[in-house]
């Protein structure tokens, strides 16, 4: 059974078709790198899988059924992380807030919950963050904390929306390595959105490239080609291979790099 399956799915946000009649399926245990220019629908696709955005047409199936909000089998690391910068709450209480956080009443967590948090923190090498206040953590540490949180409850599908943003090159590699290790061990299916393909080249099984309201899913050799990307970008694209790196160029400019720069200057508009 496929973990995620789209059959001629159209996703519409604010009267605009973000994805139009898109079909593809993702198999269990796959590590999918999700790429594409800003506004191509990466976050929108994740919201649809989470059951937050019903398709306006077509059929979307997650674990063989219609997506439902609050599915415990899905771990999610959202892109817009509104962590108050001055929040002096310790990591443990931050993570614990998401455990059954949708239930009414006063928060409480059992010894088993506590052990689960502890194990997951150890898994991503973030055990020391439990007692540290968020305000004293670096960007990389917060990211590890959020990753641990996404893994709590042993999800079978992990949706990571731009987990590398705001991390330096070293911490980006660490984050990718941790996700790869945990997901291989546990057979978790991963959708990992990123701006740059090269960091994910050795890790990903297949690439899902979004653009121009369309999607292409396949191996790097199948998808990262001039004809496919020219269709997705709606402009002439050249693909340049050098020393194990792949550059996607439009009229001599690196389009992925340009998108990345743009993000740092103006934030996201998905």
């Amino acid at each position: 059974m496929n973990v995620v399956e789209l059959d001629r799915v159209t996703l519409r946000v604010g009267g605009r078709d973000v994805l139009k009649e898109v079909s593809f399926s993702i198999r269990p245990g796959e590590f999918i790198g999700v790429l594409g220019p800003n506004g191509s629908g990466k976050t929108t696709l994740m919201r649809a899988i989470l059951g937050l955005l019903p398709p306006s047409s077509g059929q979307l199936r997650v674990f063989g059924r219609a997506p439902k909000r609050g599915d415990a089998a899905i771990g999610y690391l959202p892109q817009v992380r509104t962590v108050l910068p001055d929040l002096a709450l310790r990591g443990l209480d931050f993570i614990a807030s998401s455990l059954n956080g949708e239930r009414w009443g006063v928060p409480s967590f059992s010894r088993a919950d506590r052990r689960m948090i502890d194990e997951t923190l150890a898994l991503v090498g973030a055990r020391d963050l439990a007692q540290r206040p968020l305000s004293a953590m670096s960007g990389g540490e917060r990211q590890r904390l959020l990753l641990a949180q996404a893994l709590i409850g042993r999800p079978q599908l992990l949706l990571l929306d731009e987990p590398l943003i705001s991390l330096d090159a070293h911490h980006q590699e660490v984050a990718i390595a941790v996700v790869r290790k945990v997901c291989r061990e546990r057979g978790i299916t991963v959708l990992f959105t990123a701006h740059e393909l090269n960091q994910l080249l050795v890790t990903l099984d297949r690439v899902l490239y979004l653009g121009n309201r369309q999607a292409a899913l396949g191996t790097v050799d199948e998808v990262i080609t001039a004809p496919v990307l020219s269709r997705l970008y709606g402009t002439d694209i050249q693909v340049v291979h050098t020393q194990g790196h792949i550059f996607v160029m439009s009229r001599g400019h690196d389009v992925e790099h340009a998108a990345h720069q743009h993000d740092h200057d103006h934030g996201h508009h998905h």
Partner: protein
Amino acid sequence: MSSMPRTSTITITGTITDMFQYEFMNNAFAAAGIVAVVSGLVGYFLVMRGQTFAGHALSHIGFAGATGAGLIGLAPIWGLIGFTLAAGIVMGLLSERISNRDVAIGIVLALALGFGLLFLHYYTAFASQAAALLFGNVLAVDRATIAVLAVLAVITLLALCAIMRPLIFASLQPELAEAKGVPLRFVSTAFLAVVALAVSQCAQIVGVLLVFTLMVGPPAAAQRITSGLWSGLSVAAALALAEAWLGLTLAFYSDWPVSFCIAMLSAGGYFAALGASSWRGRHAHAGVIETPA
């Protein structure tokens, strides 16, 4: 205590019993105690959510409500509760974003104070109470008011407990909370209603202009002192209580206004906590060499 010289213990006990010989002081301690605990607990979440300004605006809207109630012959507290509650619910429904918009809130706040002035203008007999509304008059609290405050406190805390878990989740990680099925708008609206109730009670003690002294000062200090959730809530409530009671004691012996004493202690507590945490921070970092993970 046992190490203290005997004579000074006797003097202190003697003067403290002096204070409680007056019924108005007993009433003031009871009322301030109830309100301080509620303010500290509700304020903790107000600070966590970064919505302190919204809380401030609610109290100003309450001023219009209280003077308006006077105009039509109702007790000010009902106008206060009615207006803040309505305003809190409207702010919550208008969406999470609007309740965090400084400019919109500031304009509504000023408008509310303006209306308060208009109501006072038409009901001049009420003018003597204006100062009490603005700056509080805890020494005039009677038994009936204490009963009202106690009932309001129980309602406020029950409501806060009912929404606490999703409130924390939605405050810390709104995107994830939404994905997990937390009704964000309902939670934020319900919370602002809780804040409205707390503000109405707080205004009875320190006045609408000084609700920050109990609702923001102690919780903000608590978050500097401890990073745990439950310890933070406990410290916030305990600090608010200590500041309210110490403020009353100080006012009794100094003849300064109670609200001034509480405001002073609140500011003192916050800056002391700020200083202590930055001192701790410097000393914690001095011996640690940053290692890349």
